[in-house]
């Protein structure tokens, strides 16, 4: 019965739930979905993580390569991020070139990482003007059920935190590069940026903030993805973006920032525990 109701009167169905202070999947407005994180599951990658926030599942794999730095920035390496939304992850996508939303998500993720300053690209330099690391960070969404950016950032950060760089020596005379895989250093990661998505909905003159929206909620709130994405690193706000949906009031914004700040701490704990367990296991 409920399914039919949902199909015939989609808006009314949604409003009925919200007027009872509950979301269609049974969550409270500010309640987030469960997070599951697993690191180093893709052995072919140099670092990897799989994260599941509710049903949204994203795999991140990092591949290392060596390259010559740009002439104008001879002491800087490269961090290349890309988000893939293959048709497999949702019925919304068709086979073909990357969709707009994939490109938007890619840019968003790249911006968040750059703004949070969690990676100093100078750390990726090996030899001035000659050699630097390229970190190809590819995120593949295999199940898209909303709040995609949150999951992407989380899996990317978990991968970066487990990444180790082998020792590379470069002979300037012969231009010979030798890699010593037995000596590895961890990549320096400053803090842990956490993105939190919100959907904004105007219901009976009041603005409602839904944390960690599912793809159904995102759709109902009139966006391609989430309406508001905020990012905290080390307790400091380092980015906030608003896309479509209803207008954002000051109270709503404060509300959202508070949730995001709390969530940043919670997520940081999840990632830390997961990585600690993993490190215990490999050093055993």
């Amino acid at each position, binding site marked *: 019965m409920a399914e039919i109701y949902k199909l015939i009167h989609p808006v009314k169905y949604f409003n009925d739930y919200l007027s009872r202070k509950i979301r269609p999947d049974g969550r409270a407005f500010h309640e987030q979905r469960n997070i599951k994180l697993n690191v180093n599951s893709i*052995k072919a990658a140099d670092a990897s993580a799989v994260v599941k926030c509710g049903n949204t599942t994203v795999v991140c794999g990092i*591949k290392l*390569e060596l390259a010559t730095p740009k002439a104008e920035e001879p002491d800087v390496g490269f961090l290349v991020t890309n988000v893939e939304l293959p048709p497999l992850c949702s019925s919304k996508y068709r086979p073909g070139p990357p969709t707009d939303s994939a490109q938007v998500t890619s840019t968003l993720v790249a911006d968040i990482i750059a703004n949070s300053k969690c990676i100093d690209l100078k750390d990726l330099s090996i030899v001035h003007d000659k050699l630097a690391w390229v970190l190809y960070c590819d995120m593949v969404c295999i199940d898209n059920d909303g709040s995609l950016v949150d999951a992407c950032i989380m899996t990317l950060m978990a991968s970066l935190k487990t990444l180790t760089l*082998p020792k590379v020596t470069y002979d300037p005379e012969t231009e010979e*590069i030798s890699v010593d*895989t*037995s000596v590895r250093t961890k990549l320096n990661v400053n803090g842990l940026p956490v993105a939190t998505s919100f959907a904004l909905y105007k219901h009976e003159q009041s603005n409602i903030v839904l944390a960690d929206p599912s793809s159904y909620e995102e759709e109902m709130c009139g966006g391609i993805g989430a309406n508001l994405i905020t990012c905290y690193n080390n307790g400091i706000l380092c980015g906030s973006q608003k896309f479509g949906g209803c207008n954002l009031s000051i109270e709503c914004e404060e509300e959202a920032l508070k949730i995001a700040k709390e969530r940043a701490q919670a997520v940081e704990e999840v990632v830390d525990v997961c990585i600690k367990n993993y490190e215990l296991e490999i050093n055993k």
Partner: protein
Amino acid sequence: MTKMWTTKSFLTKTKRGNIIKIVREHYLRDDLLCGSGACNVCPHKDDELVLEEKPESICTLFDYPHYLILDTNVVLHQIDVLEEDALKNVIILQTVLEEVKHQNTAMYQRLLEIINNKKRRFYSFVNEHHKDTYIEREPGEKQNDRNDRAIRKACAWYETHLSICSVDGKFPKIVLLTDDENNRKIAVEEGIVCCTAKDYVENVTGAIGLIDKLSKNVIPETCSRDALYPAHLTPSQIHEGIRNGKLYQGTYRASRDNFLEGTAVVNGFEKPILLQGHIGINRAVDGDTIAVEIFPEEEWRRPSDIVLEDKADDPGDQLEEEAVLLKVAEPVDKSDEEVTPTGKVVGIIRRKWRQYCGILMRSKFPGAVRHLFTPAEKTIPRVRIETRQSDVLAMQRILVALDSWPRNSRYPLGHFVRALGPIGNKDAENEVILLEHDVPHARFSEAVLACLPPNDWTIPEEEIKKRVDLRSECICSVDPPGCTDIDDALHAKALPGKTGDGLKRYEVGVHIADVTHFVRPNTALDKEAASRSTTVYLVGRRIDMVPDLLSSNLCSLRGGEERLAFSCVWEIDENANIIHTKFHKSVIKSAAAMTYEEAQIAIDDKSRNDKVASSLRILNALAKKLNRKRLDNGALSLSSPEIRFQMDSETHEPVEVAAKKILETNSMVEEFMLLANISVAEKLAAEFPQCAMLRRHPAPPPANFSTFLKAAKQQVR
């Protein structure tokens, strides 16, 4: 299916300057057998019980039943000891097998042969895939240390496995042989019984001569006391030196005339670098890859003209005066064109030692065990060996392996491998020739012989159907007298009609014995033939590439017998222009197997008008035209007269040497074989332009003639 466990091992490797992560699966199993007769748990089949239940101890150090487990260094250095039948009940771990394979393929083959010899009771245990013996490399642990640990783990496992699995509480112990001091130390701490290969072998009873085979493997640069020679540079110093251009890499070539002189060709110098004196040569042996330091130009000398042989009685460990040599070499005149860049050996990059044939020079002191060995090859220095059998060996040709050359030893150290036979004995001398030229000449193994067809094999009917039947053609073969391996045959006949230019047409065929019908790819026979790669003819002896049944019978195109062949058949006009070529497998029946002389007589004898004679005449006439064409095309004619030994019919001793007579028919056969080769090469190049492997002789570089020119100049003087 057996139960399997899986773990993963990771490897990162570099390729094209970039790094690649390689992931491999590694399955661990519980169905691998221990191979011991004393075990009643592993589900062995009878032929899998390699190790004896109650092995008899032959070593006085360990007077209880035991199995030996060998460390990699023992296999690599003491393979000659292992090849003796004395040691039995030995466990070869997979870890060791793989390390040996990685470091030295020849050693690996020899080890496999021992393992495959059932009588030797060598069991190869797959410890790397056994769930209880596999270990993972720890972070920061060197591969070498990890392997040592894996070996110790396997030792400990065997010890407990055998103790648990024995029926009556009596079970063989494990003794680990290792020459690695560190490994031995940790093994003792872990309660594993171990000792060095030397200690073990020296205490073996009842195996005469085993001690002689012990390799005297000392680390050459550690003997700094009483050092005669300057120390070699370390590999990293050499690497550094070559990189910054101070040192050069080359292959050492010892002079045949002067044992204190040699040369090395290095990059950047046209002339080979001259190396003189004990110190200048610094323990390099002919063929070694060496690092050379070149002197400043004012110290350059010229090669000596004197002959100097190292024939002194054993002077002990001291170097004699080199003044004679060096004085001669002092350049008389700086502009002397014979002055050559001169240098000295400062390090060895790679030794290229093999086993050498030669004779034992007995020590003057009766009862001494240290003797000198003089190799048959003049470029190899004399070798110090230890043996207690010098009385017997003095009269023999013997085989010796080089082990090391410490700084404080006048001569390199080696050990006796085996005796070849009395000096002057024909068989022993033949053996020397074969060994020195690295000719494989062992009897064909059972596996190879098993690939042969039965002795009474005849061509099956269905095989004939698959091939072009040329049995009715008048085919004949022409070979030297006494030839039993007739591998080629010819035929020729006139064809009716004329060519467009009004010339006569002929059909000419070359038929090569189809060995591929019997030698199938990848069989033991195929591999053996590939390793021999040619038949070697000695005086009175032939070392066949394939067994006799094939070479002298089934693949010999004998007269009057049906044989399988591969044929190349041309249509040729009377001016020897090829009109058409075809290739096919065929069945032939040679009408006559002739000698060159018989063929010549048949051609010359005007009264003969039979088919054989007329086809020979066609062939001969065409061959002359082909030869003319070839020479006009710039072919090089090398005449190295072949010689023949006249053998005594009863003693089979050679009594006379004579140059072979060259008849027209020799060149006739040669011409058509060349034509067949050319046609096949053209066909191959046309069909497989990417991968046809063709042979050519490039023009020789002028440097190849320098020795000849020098000799010729002296003749003029």
